[in-house]
């Protein structure tokens, strides 16, 4: 992330400092809670959380919170909704870029959709799709759709028209035009859009789960734990959500770097 571009980059030193800082934070946290500086109800230590993780992961239906079950539910919703969003957004983005009337029609719609925070439509969606899975998945589709479509649209616009003309005049099949011209052309913005869409979808999914009472999942359980004043579970779920989000983000960063190298683009573009 930071620091790579600078001249005097010292990997070992930076990593050491980073590890030391994380270690210090954990140690400070543990001491504060062990010495009772802060009541353990307000701030359970890392060791307590680890123990809680084992408890919640080990039980099969005995405790109200089942970590594995919640993680599975949330991830299935996220990936399912995201796949739908990609399936909708990529063709629409390509069409709106290549066919001007569609572009004219869709652009203002994209702009308006972009301005609405997904969480604001959740109360309305709940009237239409209920308080279960359907609302959660719809919100994921809605949030992931817009950035992907916009980035694909921009990406296709950036592809030089002369490539199409050349390919067409050599009699290339549309499939090959897609594979050899369009796909390499939009690869970098596509990945950037996917990353942004996933980031938005992840945030709004957790928020939506906390509102949809029938849904279960990480966002639901963390707020449920707050109702029961179950501090350990609250903190544990927070850590789990942070780590899962970090993992997803890391995957996309990796993909972004690979695409940039694979398709011969040196600078990793559009990383917001």
């Amino acid at each position, binding site marked *: 992330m930071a620091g790579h571009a600078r001249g005097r980059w010292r990997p070992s030193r930076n990593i050491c400092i980073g590890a030391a800082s994380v270690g210090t934070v954990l140690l400070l946290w543990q001491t504060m809670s062990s010495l009772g500086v802060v009541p353990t109800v307000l701030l359970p230590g890392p060791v307590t959380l680890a123990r809680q993780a084992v408890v919640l992961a080990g039980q099969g239906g005995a405790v109200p919170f089942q970590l594995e079950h919640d993680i599975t539910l949330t991830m299935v919703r996220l990936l399912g909704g995201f796949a739908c969003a990609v399936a909708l957004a990529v063709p629409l983005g390509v069409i709106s870029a290549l066919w001007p009337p569609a572009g004219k029609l869709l652009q*203002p719609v994209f702009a308006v959709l972009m301005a*609405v925070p997904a969480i604001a439509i959740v109360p309305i969606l709940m009237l239409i799709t209920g308080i279960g899975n359907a609302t959660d998945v719809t919100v994921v589709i809605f949030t992931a759709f817009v950035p992907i479509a916009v980035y694909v649209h921009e990406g296709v616009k950036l592809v030089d028209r002369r490539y199409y003309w050349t390919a067409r005049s050599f009699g290339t099949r549309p499939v090959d035009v897609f594979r050899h011209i369009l796909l390499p052309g939009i690869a970098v913005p596509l990945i950037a859009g996917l990353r942004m869409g996933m980031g938005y979808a992840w945030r709004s999914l957790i*928020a939506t789960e906390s509102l949809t009472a029938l849904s279960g999942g990480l966002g639901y359980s963390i707020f449920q734990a707050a109702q029961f*004043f179950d501090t350990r579970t609250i903190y544990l779920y*927070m850590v789990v959500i*942070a780590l899962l989000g*970090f993992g997803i983000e890391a995957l996309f960063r990796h993909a972004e770097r690979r695409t940039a190298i694979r398709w011969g683009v040196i600078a990793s573009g559009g990383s917001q």
Partner: protein
Amino acid sequence: MQPAHARGTACEPPRRGRLAGFVRRHSNPLILIALLAIWQMLVGFGLVHNPAVPSPTAIAHSLWKGFLGPHHILAIATAATLGRLILGFAIALLAASALGLLAGRNDDIAAALNPLVALWIPLPGIVTIPVLSLWLGVGQAVIVCTVIFSAWIPLYLGALQGARSVAARQLWVARSYGATRWSTVCHIIVPSALVQMLPALRVGMGYAWRAVIAAEIITQHGEGLGVTIFAARQFFDVATMYAGVILIALLGLTIEKILFPQLERRTLKRWGLVV
């Protein structure tokens, strides 16, 4: 004189008159108006008969009533939401830019903060609400803190990049003329970092805006647009819910498309950096 057929190229169809020109120039708002008209007709003629989908005129009426009616519900809610947004954003801006400038000028501090920030980035701001409620009790402070915790990341990253991009030569010049540390910070580092921070301000404001609405919807505390939307749901006052969502979209668009471009233009002019 060119032959007539050579004048219009394939990309630019020949002009057809005033109406066509008008339509072409204002296509975006016109399309939105057309979509609203279609929506109105679908509901008005009973083709869509769902209590969860009111007609645009009903929503407009509800907007009108919310601002100019006896209780000014939407006006009060908007003021409350904007107040929380601005307070949270201001605190986040101060704290994050101080931290970012510090980390940008000192690689060790940056290295120490790096993993912590990386873990924080994908954490949805609303996840902090249960913890904040434990510490602060249910109230205004929870919403403002959620805004701070959501907005500070882009602001911090922007300040970090900004402080790193200060030209070393300017610093050498300042130092060789005997500038104090403080005046170097005030006159060189902050102005050049600020210009780099402008896009980050916009992103941070977007995060803050989403966070304040989400926190209001979830905590249901006091007044606010998020509170109003969710409260209207209890009474099945669907038109007010839609009015709230539209208001949120309009305010978001105003902040992002009008306020920040203005701010960016003025700042660039003020610091003499118009290219």
